[in-house]
C-alpha cells in the first residue's frame, strides 16, 4: 500500500485555482520528484500535504498518509503527524530556523517533543544528528547561532531537524536551489545517503531536471496547478510526451552544461 496517496487534490486561494485535481502516490522508501516552474503549484501541493497552507486556502480532494486521511484533521493532530510521520526541508534554510535559538536547542526540541527524550539525552542526540548530516565540529555547531553558519551548513541543520524523528516521509522543497553548485553536490549526496539509510520516502520538489535526474527514479511534471505528465525520470528526460515537458527538457538542454556543438 502506498505511504502517501493524493487524489483529486485541488487548492483554491482567493478564488483562483492554484492546484487542480492533482493525484500522486508514493510507496514507503520511494522517491518522487515534483517538477515545475514558479506558479506551477508544486510548493502548494507540498504545503497541502504538510497541512501548512496559508489561512483562507480552500482544499478539496484527499491526502492519505499511511491510510489516514489528512484533510480535515485538527491542528493538534496534524502537528503531531508533522513531528513523527512527515517532515519538510525548505528552500531558504534560514526561514526554518529560529534566529534567537542555538542550533543544538533547535535540534533537540523535536526529539524531546516527539521521542520523549529528556534534556540531556536530547542534547547528546543533537550532537549525533549534527555529525550525521556531516556538519564539521558538531560540538561547536550545536552551540552556534543560525546566523553564524553558512548557507550550506544551515541547510544541513534543516535536514537534521527534519530527519530527527525518523519520519516516514520527507518533503524537500527546492532544498539546494539557494546553494552554490559545489555545496549543492555535497547536499544531494547527503540527502541520497540519509534517505536510503533510514528508508525514508522522499517527495522532492524542484525546477531543475538535472538535479531530479540524479536523485529520483520517478517524477511528475506540474504546470499551472495541473499534473501534465508522470513517469520514470529516465523516460521523462529521454522521451517526454507532453509538449510542456518537451519544452522543459529542451530548455534544460539549451541552458545546461552538456557539451554542445558550437
Amino acid at each position, binding site marked *: 500500500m502506498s505511504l502517501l496517496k493524493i487524489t483529486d487534490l485541488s487548492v483554491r486561494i482567493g478564488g483562483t485555482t492554484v492546484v487542480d485535481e492533482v493525484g500522486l502516490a508514493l510507496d514507503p522508501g520511494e522517491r518522487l520528484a515534483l517538477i515545475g516552474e514558479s506558479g506551477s503549484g508544486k510548493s502548494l501541493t507540498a504545503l497541502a500535504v504538510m497541512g501548512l497552507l496559508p489561512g483562507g486556502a480552500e482544499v478539496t480532494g484527499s491526502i492519505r498518509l499511511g491510510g489516514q486521511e489528512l484533510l480535515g484533521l485538527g491542528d493538534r493532530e496534524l502537528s503531531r503527524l508533522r513531528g513523527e510521520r512527515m517532515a519538510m526541508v525548505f528552500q531558504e534554510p534560514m526561514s526554518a530556523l529560529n534566529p534567537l535559538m542555538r542550533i543544538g536547542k533547535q535540534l533537540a526540541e523535536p526529539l524531546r517533543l516527539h521521542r520523549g527524550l529528556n534534556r540531556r539525552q536530547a542534547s547528546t542526540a543533537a550532537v549525533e544528528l549534527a555529525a550525521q548530516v556531516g556538519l564539521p565540529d558538531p560540538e561547536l555547531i550545536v552551540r552556534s547561532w543560525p546566523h553564524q553558519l553558512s548557507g550550506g551548513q544551515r541547510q544541513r541543520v534543516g535536514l537534521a531537524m527534519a530527519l530527527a524523528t525518523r519520519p516516514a516521509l520527507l518533503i524537500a522543497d527546492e532544498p539546494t536551489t539557494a546553494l552554490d553548485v559545489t555545496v549543492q*553536490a555535497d547536499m544531494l549526496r547527503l540527502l541520497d545517503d540519509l534517505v536510503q539509510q533510514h528508508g525514508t520516502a522522499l517527495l522532492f520538489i524542484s525546477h*531543475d531536471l538535472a538535479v531530479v*535526474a540524479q536523485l529520483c527514479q520517478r517524477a511528475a511534471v506540474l504546470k499551472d496547478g495541473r499534473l501534465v505528465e508522470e513517469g520514470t525520470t*529516465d523516460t521523462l528526460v529521454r522521451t517526454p510526451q507532453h509538449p510542456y515537458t518537451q519544452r522543459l527538457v529542451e530548455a534544460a538542454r539549451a*541552458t545546461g*552544461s552538456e*557539451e554542445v556543438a558550437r
Partner: protein
Amino acid sequence: MTSLLRADGLSRSFRLPRTSLFAPAVHRDAVRDVSLDLKEGAGLGIVGESGSGKSTLARLLLALDRPDSGTVHYRDREVRPGAPRKLTWFRREVQVVLQDPMGSLDPRATVRDIVAEPLECLRLPGDHDDRVDELLRSVGLDPSVRGRYPHEFSGGQRQRIAIARALAPGPKVLVGDEPLSALDVSVRAQILALLNDLTEAYGLTLLLVSHDIGVVRHLCTDVLVMKDGLAVEQGPAASVLADPQHPYTRRLLAAVPRLPA
C-alpha cells in the same frame, strides 16, 4: 582582435562590520590582483560561486566601484570611477544587465522612462521615444507597453526591458551580472537565445558573470574562474571546461548536475 576592456592587477577589499567595539577592523579581500583582457567580438565568462568576488569584479570593470589598486582601460583609455559626466564616453560603450529583473527596474518608473534613462543621462541625440520603441521591438516586446510599470510584467519580460535599457546607447560591450539566474528554466532558455541573437545582430562583446557553467558554455568563448577573489584559471572556454587544470575548476565542473544524455 583588438583589446576592448582590459584590467590590470585589480584589487578591492571591504571593511567588515566590527563584531565588537574593541575588535580590530577586519578587511576582506573581495578581488585580489585580477587581470583580464576582453577582446573585441569575444565572450568572456567570469565563473565562480557566491563570495568569489565575481560581482565585485564586474562592478570594478563597470567603473561603479573604485579599486584599491589596479587599473581598467577601455580601448587603451583609462577608466576612472568618478563624476558621471567624465564617464559618459565609457557608459556609451559599456552597459550592464543585472541579475534580478524586479530589483533592477524602478517600481515607480514606466517602461519608457526605464529604457530611455541611459539616452537621457548620456545625452544621446535623436528622438528618444522612437528609439525606445525600436529597442522594445528588438528585445521582442510590443512598443505599446511603454506606459506600463515593471510589476505588470513577468520575470522574463522584465529582463527583456532591462536588456533594452542596456542596449539603448548602442554599446559595444554588454556586461551581464547573472542575467539569467533569477529566471525559470524555460524563460532562461528564451533570454539566452535572445542574448545570443542580439550579440550577433549588434556585434556585441559579452562579459558574463555567472555561477552557471552551462550558460557560460553557451555564450562565451573564454572563461575566467574565480575563487576567494583570485582568478584561479583563465583561458579559452573549450579547453578550460574540457580539460580544467586547477583543482577548484575540476571540483566545480564535477559538481554541476547533468541531464542523462
